[in-house]
């Protein structure tokens, strides 16, 4: 998305949430949802609307794992790496998925196809290991399922 299209979306997010109590997270979540990430230029706008300093705004954005400072890949794969998934072979699945996608956790592939992220618990601990692919949850993963997912998001 060209940067010129982003700021009206940021403005809309500010306008629709600015009046609520504790508005920072609702605004940031809305920006991330519509723009896909939190652009640098959004921070002073949000800071001004909330009457906080830009430094404070930066502090808020950088605190939460979910907020991205640059666009994600076209597909986002969030693999659970917590204990219940570890107990069901999650470490092997993580390794295989990362190898097949050719990216490390926290990285986006150079072609912009896929971002691989670690999450700590999707609450699917009785059907572990689990992953969320573009918002779709998949449980009882094994190596083959991991490869299928890799193929799917690289297509």
């Amino acid at each position, binding site marked *: 998305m060209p940067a010129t299209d982003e700021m009206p979306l940021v403005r809309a997010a500010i306008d629709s949430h600015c009046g609520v*109590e504790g*508005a920072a997270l609702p605004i940031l979540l809305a920006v991330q949802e519509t723009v896909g990430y939190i652009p640098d230029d959004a921070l002073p706008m949000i800071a001004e609307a909330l009457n906080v300093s830009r430094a404070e705004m930066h502090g*808020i954005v950088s*605190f*939460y794992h979910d907020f991205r400072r640059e666009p994600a890949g076209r597909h986002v794969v969030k693999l659970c790496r917590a204990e219940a998934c*570890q*107990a069901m072979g999650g470490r092997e699945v993580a390794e295989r998925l990362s190898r097949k996608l050719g990216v490390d956790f926290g990285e986006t592939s150079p072609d912009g196809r896929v971002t691989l992220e670690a999450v*700590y618990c999707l609450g699917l601990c*009785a059907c572990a290991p689990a992953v969320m692919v573009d918002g779709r949850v998949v449980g009882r993963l094994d190596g083959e399922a991991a490869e299928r997912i890799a193929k799917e998001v690289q297509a």
Partner: protein
Amino acid sequence: MSIRVFVPGDAGAVAVGADAVAVELEELALERGFAIDIVRNGSRGLYWLEPLVEVETQARRMAYGPVRPEDVASLLDAGMLEGGRHALSLGPTEEIPFLMQQTRLTFARCGVVDPRSLGDYRAHGGYEGLTKALTMQPAEIVEQVKASGLRGRGGAGFPTGIKWETVLNTPTDGKGAEQKYIVCNADEGDSGTYADRMLMEGDPFLLIEGMTIAGLAVGATKGYIYLRSEYPHAEIVTNAAIAAARHAGMLGADVSGSGKAFDLEVRMGAGAYVCGEETSLLESLEGKRGQVRAKPPLPAHKGLFGKPTVINNVLSFAAVPYILSEGAEAYRDFGMGRSRGTMPIQLAGNVKHGGVFEMAFGLTLGELVNDIGGGTASGRPVRAVQVGGPLGAYFPPSLFDTPFDYEALTARDGLLGHGGIVVFDDTVDMAAQARFAFEFCAIESCGKCTPCRLGAVRGTEVMDRVIAGTDVEANLTLVEDLCETMKLGSLCALGGFTPFPVMSALRHYPEDFGRAPERAAAAE
């Protein structure tokens, strides 16, 4: 009349294919001219049988599972819609042993009702607790909750009634601002726990009712549910339920025609485990970094935006309607010692029968893991269970006689936490698990206090040296010393409890750390 068929919309069921099953069922039924009405219910909590499809026959509900889309045709051939036999038949749902053995007070409706239907909720006894509460004085409601012995189900186990009483008795600031708040902690971040998610996806009106009763009890008119971003399904269902409750006048300016106001809003988190800590959650709700606050002041005195605030876990609020409708005594009669009522225990990880098992406190770990959970999913011997999430201790089978209650687990250097049990088989490397505990703490530390912020990073490094076999004894002494510092010096449970998994792993599995068992025994 169409036949009601239940295909769970619970995220756990969806993760193993429930959506595809629902689509297949709908298409084939249409093709064959069957009139069916597919209800996307919550999960019954028998995850090894998901997707678990139920058919409402005249007598009772019949269960089939685990159903794959390709099974649907043969299920219809076998007369599933009349409850016919099939290889996937599980019989009447209520007679499945895993369910029959439970005492479901909080989860009585989960998986049974349509989670978006207020009518269904009422038809199954919903809002009876609120109806009772509306006839009572605030202090009487608080008294009931106190008398029930209910303790916070989020992990700390603080008596819920005392918390409510404190908020009830805290004067507002006298500057004309009369606001008090009810906040629900739905930031269920512990691995191995998913009862909050299930409940919000399967019976969200129960949480709404519990929070409304809390509002009446302490004089609060506004409530927030702080929900973690990893739970998008719960967000959708809960918001639908809130809208339905508001539409029916069960939330808003005039709750159930009582003249009393209470309204609710779901707020999403943004991926921070520490926001499950109550003061950090409040900071986050206020739109700040989710950094822990020093206590005092307690949230009951100065909570959200500095106002008196009740903050409880999903399961604590969800226990309240039963206490009001059936009476405090009925609830208190379950349980043992100072752990009263029931606990939805969550079996997870490498376990054959993973799922939610609600029961009065007091079963032993062994009964839960081996008898109810059926041992490991892999079929290998159980080597360790982690109880109470990533900050909970690891227990070996030699301690499986430990009863599942707050005090008994504490007495053995563990914690009950949010009631999750993660099972590991004999392939687990406990040194790697200890290292992970530090690593997780380092990733999720809010950074406010030094023992947690620095200790977790140093702990990970020292564990790396132990695992590499470098100067093992000296480094393990360092680990022990570090754990002591984190335990005593951290501001909240994240840094303060990370030593539980580390030290329990080291104590019970010294051989995984390159330490001879004799040396460990001598050190104790």
